[in-house]
């Protein structure tokens, strides 16, 4: 994910607003995007490690690798997450 100091993160009930200082863009995230971002951390994880870590932290009733990939792709498109 983008460097933590370049982000301003505000929680708005069901949403998390993330302001990226460098681009001036505000991202509105709904679950599970904030949880994925937090789990990825700044160092980042492989898809398999991310899935494992999420499964360890959360009760994932509808786990599906394709759905996780799609959520990750959204974060990549937003610029908040970069692919290695």
């Amino acid at each position, binding site marked *: 994910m983008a460097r933590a100091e370049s982000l301003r993160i505000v929680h708005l009930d069901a949403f998390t607003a993330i302001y990226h200082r460098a681009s*001036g863009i505000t991202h509105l995230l*709904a679950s599970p995007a904030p949880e994925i971002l937090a789990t990825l951390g700044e160092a980042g994880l492989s898809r398999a490690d991310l899935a494992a870590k999420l499964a360890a*932290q959360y009760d994932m009733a509808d786990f599906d690798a394709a759905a996780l990939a799609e959520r990750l792709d959204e974060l990549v498109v937003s610029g908040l997450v970069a692919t290695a």
Partner: protein
Amino acid sequence: MSDETPEPAEKAPSEETLGTGATRRRALMLGAAGAAAVVSIRPALAQTNASLLTCEIPVPDPGRAGKYVAADGSVVAPGTSGAFAPAGRPFKGFEVKQALGGGQLPGTTYEQNQAYVNYIRKLQHGTSGFTCFASLQMPRG
């Protein structure tokens, strides 16, 4: 933020950052395909870096062409003592950005540069060059 906390009951430091911390396992739904979880809002004044380089700020604006620019940046009648003649050409966005950062506009003397920069700082919404000037203020990089 790369810790590998194995215990789901523990609060991971990464969760504190985003405030999604939980002291026990919470349900997390990945959602169906096509249900977007991220919406990005771009500032209306944001321009690409390319247009930042090429956008222009005329000094003064065409509506007051031919008038002079006083040291404080106000637009005054042509020939006013102590004021400066209009700039020979509009300044490019990157030239103004450099001048705002302590540099000097091309082809200007020190005092002339100060007057022009003061004029640019006073640009109002609706004045030619304002959008270019405003976009220089946008955080980026």
